[in-house]
């Protein structure tokens, strides 16, 4: 053996998967053919075909929305909160029972390492359904007045970075609040949502309560613009979110948007240094950096700049890139060629703009889409890689001298989704947290998620919150007296 660190392959078996050759749309409790041109979903790690996926056209969207409306009127709105909750509990349990299968499917279709889909994504999916299951019969306590009302049919469009987790973030609160759903997973990652549809069948969820339409951007557009939906929830790019906000203006549809970010991860000189380095790594290299709240801007205090960057490089050299299904893989595949092109383009711009590029040495597999962990040091605040969301494993390093400078640099972005603070000094952490314009702030940790914890952004990172009590408000009409006479 040449090196212990070249751990022998430890692939998770795909034998647990029982995939069909092709998948239809899930409408009214059944898989049906779509009327658009079907498309293939591939593994981004190998570019191999996984399955053929139906493509929903406008007529399919009509059918699905009508099914959701019928289910809302005839079934779901008539059910007690307790019974809605029981369905959600059933779903949570089924997700747990089929957790490994779902994790394998997710890693296969998305390219993320199995250790993440297995230890983060899928456990959180189950947790999300458990959490909101318990809310279904307790809506009176959500702070929205007595017996807050469901909105009706929710149109939900989700991204490819956490396919099943984003589905859970959308569907669990919607159903708990009493809405029915038409959801469109991302074009490149439909697989786990379709397995989830099978779980809904196993749970015997009433037909039409959840409908899943696969397709591309036009399907999503037809869905959010459909006149018979009452609620639109979107997670994705700020550009698309902006377009959706315009398209629903004046319609009375309630809208929540969870969009892009360019989070600052602020490391002070009194930080717990080894944990900060781990937090930086987790902040930007978790899920190949395909994370809207990724800590893509490292703001490090000047007097520890070189120390931190040195340690970071040393740590990155131990990251293992490769087969997403290998249990020892830390960095998986980039989700699509299109995304890879964008990461490459922005990285080239970063280099052209004069930042110092450093890339961890790792072997790049021949097929599939890969991008080695990359750091840009001495990035200026005006550089495009410090401004634009790269959505890949690329970290921009900037420095600051005082807490006030750190705060002003951190806030100097149209985004406001998340931020990190590393320091051993509690009073400084709390004061900095107060000043940061971001919806989620991690102090001495990063990229933690929990169904009880509200998530969402300030400014152009969107509006509304997902998770926690606040996440329910997005799917309910408050019955608190509006216009109380004084």
């Amino acid at each position, binding site marked *: 053996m040449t090196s212990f660190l070249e751990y022998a392959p430890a692939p998770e078996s795909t034998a647990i998967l029982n995939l069909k050759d092709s998948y239809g749309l899930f409408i009214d409790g059944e898989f049906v053919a779509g009327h658009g041109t079907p498309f293939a979903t591939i593994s981004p790690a190998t570019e191999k075909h996984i399955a053929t996926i139906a493509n929903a056209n406008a007529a399919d969207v009509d059918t699905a929305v009508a099914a959701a409306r019928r289910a809302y009127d005839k079934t779901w709105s008539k059910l007690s909160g307790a019974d809605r909750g029981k369905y959600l509990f059933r779903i949570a349990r089924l997700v747990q029972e089929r957790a490994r299968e779902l994790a394998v499917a997710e890693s296969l279709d998305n390219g993320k390492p199995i250790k993440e889909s297995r230890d983060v994504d899928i456990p959180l999916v189950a947790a999300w359904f458990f959490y909101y299951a318990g809310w279904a019969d307790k809506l009176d306590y959500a702070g929205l007045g007595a017996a807050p009302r469901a909105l009706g049919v929710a149109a939900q469009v989700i991204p490819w970075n956490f396919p099943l987790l984003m589905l859970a973030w959308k569907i669990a609160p919607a159903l708990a609040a009493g809405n029915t759903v038409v959801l469109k997973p991302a074009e490149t990652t439909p697989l786990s949502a379709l397995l989830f549809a099978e779980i809904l069948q196993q749970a015997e969820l009433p037909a039409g309560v959840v409908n899943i339409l696969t397709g591309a951007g036009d399907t999503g557009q037809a869905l959010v613009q459909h006149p018979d939906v009452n609620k639109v929830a979107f997670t994705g790019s700020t550009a698309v*979110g902006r377009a959706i906000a*315009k398209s629903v203006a004046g319609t009375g549809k309630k809208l929540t948007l969870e969009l892009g970010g360019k989070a600052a991860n602020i490391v002070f000189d009194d930080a717990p240094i080894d944990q900060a380095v781990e937090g930086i790594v987790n902040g930007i290299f978790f899920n190949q950096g395909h994370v809207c709240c990724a800590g893509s801007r490292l703001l490090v205090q000047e007097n520890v700049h070189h120390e931190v960057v040195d340690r970071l490089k040393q740590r990155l050299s131990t990251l293992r890139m490769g087969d997403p299904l290998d249990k020892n893989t830390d960095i998986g595949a980039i989700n699509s060629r299109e995304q890879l092109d964008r990461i490459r383009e922005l990285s080239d711009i970063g280099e052209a703009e004069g930042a110092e590029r450093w890339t961890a040495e790792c072997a790049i597999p021949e097929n599939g889409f890969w991008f080695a962990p990359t750091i840009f040091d001495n990035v200026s605040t005006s550089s495009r890689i410090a401004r634009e969301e790269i959505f890949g494993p690329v970290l921009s390093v900037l420095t600051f001298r005082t807490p006030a400078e750190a705060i002003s640099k951190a806030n100097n972005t149209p985004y406001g989704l998340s931020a990190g603070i590393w320091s051993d000094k509690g009073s400084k952490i709390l004061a900095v947290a107060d000043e940061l314009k971001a919806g*989620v702030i991690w*102090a001495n940790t990063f990229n933690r998620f929990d169904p009880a914890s509200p998530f969402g952004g300030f400014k152009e990172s969107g509006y509304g919150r997902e998770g926690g009590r606040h996440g329910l408000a997005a799917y309910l009409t408050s019955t608190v007296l509006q216009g109380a006479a004084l």
Partner: protein
Amino acid sequence: MTHLAVPKTYKLYIGGKFPRSESGRTYEVVARDGSFLANAAKASRKDARDAVVAARAAQPGWAGATGYNRGQVLYRIAELLEGRRAQFVLEITSTEGVTAAAAGKQVDAAIDTWVWYAGWADKYVQVAGNANAVSGPYFNISVPEPTGIVAIVAPPDSLLGLVSVVAPAIVSGNTVVVIASETAPLSAISLAEVLATSDVPGGVINILTGSAAEIAPWLASHADVNALDLTGAESLEWVDLQIAAADTLKRVRTPGDFGASLDRIVGFTETKTVWHTKSLI
């Protein structure tokens, strides 16, 4: 011997000062019976721009004040308003053509609105925020914070309408640029005089008079405005304003009533969730 009245010049209220419109324009404010009441300043887009600058400058300090302090500042407005009750009754009576009793009722309601919202300053955080029981060794708390700058199209109901949209927006620490009722702007400017002598820092409330249809689009599209309150915009092309606001993902409240509610406060706040590790060792 009779006293010859000294009429008031009604100007804008920006950054704690009373400038004329930079455009030099005014428009006639008339009584219900059509008789001339005053020349009010007709604000331009540049006045709106200046108001946003003033609001931005004032925002961190106002948001940084304690809730207790902001509550007292709002309560102080009620006190001053009460002291000038007669003046407001007279103004409302002449502008809106209502009886003195009806005008008095409106002024009282406006005073009570300040008092009601004043009390929320140090409480809305408790009601709208909470600790989160996450499954891990973390302290985790969600608290609402002011959104930033709120641009407001005030309802036509002169004083009460104005107070009902301004008070909830500022109580959390936002600063506002408000377009007063076009037809009944006088009590808005008189309120500004109250504000100028109150403890409200300059720039926290900026009041523009003139054409909402002309100014509102500039505020709706202004990148440094964080939220848009269209409560009084029913008669405008408000969907266009909402579309313009979407360019920077502003929080938008669509036209509707203006009754007092916590929702008006929380609607212009952002929930911030902070995680921190916990360990004994």
